[in-house]
């Protein structure tokens, strides 16, 4: 995990050094890499025997817990977002 963060910090440094030159292709590269990574994540999950075999049995409970937990936190983050926005409008 810290290796991954190290790559980003190095990137920030390189980007800062090159700030005189707009690196316009970087956003296209980022979205392409995101798509590639999602494809690879799909391959990894699909090739994982435990996940695929158990999905029929335990997948329903897992799916309910995951979506409810995620949705709950999205709502709460939305509430915090609303308080921030209202504050900015008040200014």
């Amino acid at each position, binding site marked *: 995990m810290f290796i991954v963060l190290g*790559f980003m910090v190095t990137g920030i440094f390189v980007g800062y050094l090159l700030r005189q030159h707009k690196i316009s292709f970087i956003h296209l590269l980022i979205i392409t890499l*995101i798509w590639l990574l999602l*494809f690879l994540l799909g391959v990894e999950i699909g090739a994982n025997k435990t996940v695929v075999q158990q999905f029929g049995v335990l997948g329903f409970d897992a799916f*309910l*817990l995951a*979506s409810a937990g995620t949705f709950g*936190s*999205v709502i709460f*983050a939305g509430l*915090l977002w609303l308080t921030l926005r209202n504050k900015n409008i008040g200014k």
Partner: protein
Amino acid sequence: MKSSVIILSFFATGLLFGVFRWFPSILMTYNISFYVLCLLMFSVGISIGNDPTSVRQFRNLPPRIIFLPLMTIAGTFLGVFAVSLFLKNRSLTDCMAIGSGFGYYSLSSILITQYKGIELGTIALLSNIIREVITLLFAPWMVKYFGKLAPISAGGATTMDTTFPIIVRYSGQQYAIVSIYHGFIMDLSVPFLVTFFCSL
């Protein structure tokens, strides 16, 4: 919505390739996705460093955002609590332990397998993988309807690595620091909360 559909189709194609083993074994033995993630993080870093306004934008972030991890924890617990009422064969504490993985499937499934056995450990593995996938697939939709903090909360403990690039893409570069801070705090809280709910 269009971006979610594109993301979903890449992921679904990957799933098909994985299930039917249409890939060279080199993909798994060398953990290619880790290198792609590193390259992606490097690129995100360049885009942040290259943008002269990004440092100023960090400073303009409202201080109240430090409470975001608390919102993530509270929201997750409330959602999991609601679902546990319908899952008759699972206890509330078991459900809470699974929810406390916050997408960190490797650690939470290992811990829960140790404390509670293989079945609950497998549910924790599946559930936390699904949380990560939901975040990756629906991040653009979450930003649209629930604001720029929503995909960060949804990503839970993964927001400083696997879901980080997608959050920066859809919430904006000024939220990069929020995403890392949030992921760091959630990463630390996973072992404590999982152990706590397993010991009840």
